[in-house]
């Protein structure tokens, strides 16, 4: 067998003229937009900077954060329970879960928030008695028990439960039947199989949309400003209702929301990497 030198050739990659052209157009448009923004007399960067770190704005940020955290924790826990009920063999439990999801996914979050804010108009007092005995354990006016904050947490987490339930159910269904069978063949019971085999694999499917849910939740907390929820949006609203500097204060809120969402995205990326273990793509060990 004889070897011949292959002829020397030069490889010319595809030239992406289109990319240069779009870069030029986008840069031009961005420059025009920035110029319009910065020359506007109503943007007031100084005002934005002034309010960005005011105490009541920071308090609002903290409230927004813990509202998000609490609603997501309760929402995910309740959603997990609803998902399991929805997949249960028991038709009554399936029906309960279905109805809950139907109602809370089928009505606007804003309506739910206002509803819980005005719960006292429906039930003026909250009373807890031992059935058939008349012994009263607890009796208070609704407006005292369900404060603006409690109503906000209730509405946000109940609403989130409905969405989280569907996300988690989807994740569980995405796990191959063969996994459940293999676990069953090893003598693992249904609960153990769910906890040790199905859920860890479902997490890969559940986490990206739950990250999405968390980001949506962070922004949805702005809706509780309608019932004076003391969040970031309520804080900036109460300022611009006094000084009419609407645009700068909305910018303050937007900057904070964007910063918090960016942080959440990083967290999501880290968690996704953790649960990608053992899978070919993104399989970090």
């Amino acid at each position, binding site marked *: 067998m004889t070897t011949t030198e292959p002829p020397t050739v030069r490889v010319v990659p595809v030239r992406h003229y289109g990319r240069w052209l779009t870069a030029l157009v986008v840069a031009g448009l961005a420059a025009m937009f920035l110029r319009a923004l910065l020359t506007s007399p109503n943007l007031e960067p100084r005002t934005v900077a002034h309010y960005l770190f005011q105490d009541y704005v920071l308090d609002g940020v903290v409230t927004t954060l813990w509202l998000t955290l609490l609603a997501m924790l309760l929402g995910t826990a309740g959603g997990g329970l609803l998902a399991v009920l929805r997949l249960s063999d028991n038709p009554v439990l399936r029906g309960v879960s279905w109805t809950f999801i139907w109602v809370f996914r089928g009505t606007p979050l804003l309506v739910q928030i206002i509803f819980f804010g005005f719960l006292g108009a429906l039930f003026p007092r909250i009373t807890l008695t031992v059935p058939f005995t008349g012994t009263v354990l607890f009796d208070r006016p609704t407006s005292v028990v369900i404060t603006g904050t409690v109503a906000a947490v209730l509405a946000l987490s109940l609403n989130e439960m409905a969405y989280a339930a569907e996300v988690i159910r989807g994740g569980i269904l995405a796990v*191959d039947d*063969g*996994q459940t*069978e*293999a*676990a*069953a*063949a*090893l*003598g*693992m*019971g*249904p609960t*153990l199989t769910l906890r*040790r*085999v199905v859920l*860890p*694999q479902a997490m890969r499917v559940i986490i990206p949309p739950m990250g999405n849910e968390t980001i949506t939740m962070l922004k949805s907390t702005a809706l509780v400003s309608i019932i004076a929820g003391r969040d970031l949006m309520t804080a900036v609203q109460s300022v611009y209702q006094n000084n009419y500097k609407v645009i700068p204060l909305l910018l303050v809120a937007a900057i904070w929301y964007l910063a918090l969402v960016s942080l959440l995205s990083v967290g999501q990326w880290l968690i996704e990497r953790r*649960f990608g*273990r*053992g*899978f*070919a793509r993104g*399989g970090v*060990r």
Partner: protein
Amino acid sequence: MTAMVRAEGVTKRFGPVEVLKGIDLTVAAGEVACLLGPSGSGKSTFLRCVNHLERIDGGQLSVDGELVGYRRQGDKLHELKAREVAVRRRDIGMVFQRFNLFPHLTALGNVTEAPVRVLRTPRERARAEAMRLLDRVGLAERADHYPSQLSGGQQQRVAIARALAMRPKLMLFDEPTSALDPELVGEVLDVMKGLAADGMTMVVVTHEMGFAREVADQVAFLDDGVVVEAGPPDEVLGRPRHERTRAFLDKVL
């Protein structure tokens, strides 16, 4: 010899389709039985009935003297709860066509999972036992690999080690080499031959005629939901008495 698996007139239907039409089969303890037959003959379904992955509709099926999926009380049969079924499955190992390893656990994790969680074996002891089993299937140095990092043959050998970790008295194999590249079939069959030589009771659904001829004590040919003929491999494979068996063997040999 005592019967490990005894099936009498076992029937099973999926909706309108009767998949098993009365299976009669006895597998003695320590015996290797190979189930052969065309696809759709019901051999895999029957195997899945043996550890109650499918519920039978009629007849009687027992493993080691205990009814599968039911408890007899007087003249009534009570269906077992999921938890009770799980307890009985501990003694029956199963190996699947598509391996079904847990992808989020390493090879070692796959083997130790059930002993630790189900039998409550202390973790250290389970690890030592798992390493011994992985060594037996020739994969001790792959213990820390995830299933996606193993070849099909290696995955199937881990799956066998995983089933053995429960110290089963019966092993079921559902076409264990059908999803493998041809050059990987041998390594899995070698492990199975070793098991057979050690006296494990095995029921194997397979298309590997060479394995059946060499290892099986009993070969059962299934077609259309019944056992057409069963007996020693020399007889069933060498001198089949039924036309259907002959027709099948002509196609596969």
